[in-house]
């Protein structure tokens, strides 16, 4: 590869990745879609495949990755924070209401006397307008955010892997059709379609389910492109030809030979995307289109707290801080995984 060619690829690479950055979609400006072209996705995965070949000396890729991840202090802190959050969110039913009172329901007897309390030992972050404990609400909010983030990304990844694999494995009409579909879905910021779909649903039908579905069903194209690129480069390896020569079926080639070597970029991107999905959920809930009360969500807490901002800034500050910490953690973990898995991607 000549210098100028190399340069050219890098430049496109950079642009593609910037446009494709998962977190970008959720910012206020409803940004432009990320039209990463399939050729580029392919290019930036060449290096991935090459390095994987060199790595294969005895130890497994995942063992190596874990060893490298452990040495990355930032990623480790992020991981610890996320593990704490998941633990708290999963076990919330067991202890939160005992310690701080039920954060979801309004207790009419104590609502007025307990409203907007300053932080005390009983209510470490104070209470909200309805006398419900803020810390308890934040923990339940984490549950909603993590559920949406993880489920939406899982949906996107499953669809993306399937279509990406088909697209990369069967060139020609299948490939063209799927790639034109990704063009369409990447032509606009998907949060807009989430807003449109959720706004068009009857109010009674809104809630966590439609949010997960709309984010998940609209998020797949980036994964499809990324995985297609990986598949295309891994497919060229001799061991795939060897597999084919000894008569392995398409599905065996795909699942046993190609997938394990092509999945790393998808894992990295998926980890970062969880943060993006959480931001999107917060934005949708802030607009009143997402999770509906009495279900608790950080975005909705910010909407509710906005009116009392001048006297009780904590009502808005804490949920926002939780969102930031969580999103940053997923990004850092993604960064760490990228380095650990030796995936060539730039921020």
């Amino acid at each position, binding site marked *: 590869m000549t*210098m*100028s060619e190399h340069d*050219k690829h*890098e*430049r*496109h690479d*950079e*642009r593609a990745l*910037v*446009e494709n*950055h998962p*977190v*970008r979609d959720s*910012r*206020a*400006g*409803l*940004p*432009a*879609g990320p*039209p990463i072209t399939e*050729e*580029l996705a392919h290019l930036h995965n060449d290096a991935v495949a090459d390095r994987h070949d060199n790595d294969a000396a005895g130890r497994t890729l995942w063992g190596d990755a874990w060893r490298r991840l452990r040495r990355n202090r930032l990623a480790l802190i992020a991981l610890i924070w996320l593990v704490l959050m998941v633990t708290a969110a999963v076990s919330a039913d067991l202890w939160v209401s005992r310690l701080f009172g039920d954060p979801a329901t309004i207790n009419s007897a104590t609502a007025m006397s307990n409203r907007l309390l300053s932080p005390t030992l009983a209510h470490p972050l104070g209470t909200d307008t309805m006398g419900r404990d803020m810390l308890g609400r934040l923990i339940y909010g984490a549950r909603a955010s993590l559920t949406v983030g993880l489920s939406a990304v899982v949906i996107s990844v499953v669809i993306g892997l399937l279509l990406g694999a088909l697209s990369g494995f069967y060139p020609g009409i299948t490939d063209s059709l799927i790639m*034109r*579909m990704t*063009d*369409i879905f990447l*032509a*606009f*910021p998907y949060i*807009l*379609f989430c*807003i*449109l*779909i959720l*706004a*068009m*649903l*009857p109010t009674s*039908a809104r809630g966590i389910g439609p949010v997960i579905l709309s984010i998940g069903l609209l998020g797949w194209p980036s994964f499809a492109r990324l995985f297609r690129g990986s598949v295309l480069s891994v497919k060229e390896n001799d061991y795939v030809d060897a597999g084919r020569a000894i008569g392995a079926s398409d599905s065996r080639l795909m699942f046993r030979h190609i997938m394990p070597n092509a999945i790393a970029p998808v894992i990295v991107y998926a980890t970062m995307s969880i943060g993006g999905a959480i*931001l999107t959920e917060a*934005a949708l809930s*802030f*607009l*009143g*289109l997402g999770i509906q009360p009495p279900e608790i969500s950080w975005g909705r807490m*910010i909407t509710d707290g*906005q009116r009392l*901002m*001048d006297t009780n*800034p904590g009502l*808005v500050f804490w*949920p*926002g801080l939780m*969102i*930031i910490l969580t*999103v*940053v953690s997923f*990004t850092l973990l993604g960064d760490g995984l990228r380095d650990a898995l030796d995936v060539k991607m730039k*921020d």
Partner: protein
Amino acid sequence: MFQYIARRVLQFVPVFFGVTLILFLIANYLPGADPVQLKFGEKAIPPERKAQIVHQLGLDRPWYTQYIDYLGSLSLVHMTYYDGSAPATTTADGSLTADGSVALVVPRVPGPVPSGSVIIHVSDSQIVTRGAWGRFAIGPLAIEFDKPDLGTSLATGRPVIDILGQAYPYTVELALAAILLEIFFGIGAGIISAVKQYSFWDILVTLVSSVLVSLPVFWLGIMLQQVFGIWLKNVTGGAFYLPPLFDGSPGAKFPHFAYLILPAITLASVSTAYAARIMRSQLLEVNGADYIRTARAKGLSAGAVLWKHAMKNAMIPVVTFIGLDFGAMLAGAILTETVFNWPGIGWTIYKAIVGKDFPIVFGGVTVVLFVVMFVNLIVDVSYAFLDPRIRYGGTGE
């Protein structure tokens, strides 16, 4: 270069039809958006009345006919097969169902009435005729130029396109302010960060940009209001806090631009962080290139190397990014505008969501999507002019 441009434009065609098809499907097949139900609000509809409206709105026709009609309504040029023999007829409920209203001015062409006459526009209270920008006829075809037809607001009965048109200047104003901030601070921070790599400033820029890209923007907007509008009220005299709706009203104490500052910072925040990151990584990359080493070896000053050699190449992706971003900002910032009550297109959409004024939500998102799509196309095409490698015959791939 022309090959590159042609391919970009060709790629746009399926995208355009795909996006409009999805919009069409959402409008017609999602429960909340059922156009028949919308005419009735939450009330139950008697079945025979329902069938009547379905027929009147042309919803019993095949979906592709409806889709083509939908595309026609979005277009600036409307073509109607005109047959003047049937005058416009008014039905019992007062809506106009004939093929005639559009062509009232167009010279009438004799001939039989085609079956399935086109309904020009029907609403409960008013008839919106098309062709405000002019119309003419070629044979039986009535060709008209007019604003896209996005329906009328359920609440006020005004055409949605007019409501959006009124809000749009505010969105453009905010977008311009934000993009200026982004260009200045994003590129500036990126350059400092790259030139003084690993210095205090570099670390600061990296940290701040990492946090900024993870911020919920609406939260940032509210916090800025709190800090500058409330805590620092005595310093700022309450500026930065009043929503611009009061601009010009007795409550407005400050010139217009004062009200623009916080929303612009909020809108620019995330993209500024991205612009800085790209600028930094591009400069660092270019700095390692052979031609930069050559320039240094020739004894050029650091400034000359940076501005005359490195920046030229490093800027291309940054300019592209900012271009795409400007498109996104022009498309309206629902969250930022909502937080600051900035009466642009995003805020209009939000109000409509709250007020269940579906035609405005739908029309607003349609306009926004179109702006994004077309700006993306323009930026893609202009890439051909920006990048000499494409300009002189390369394909860019």
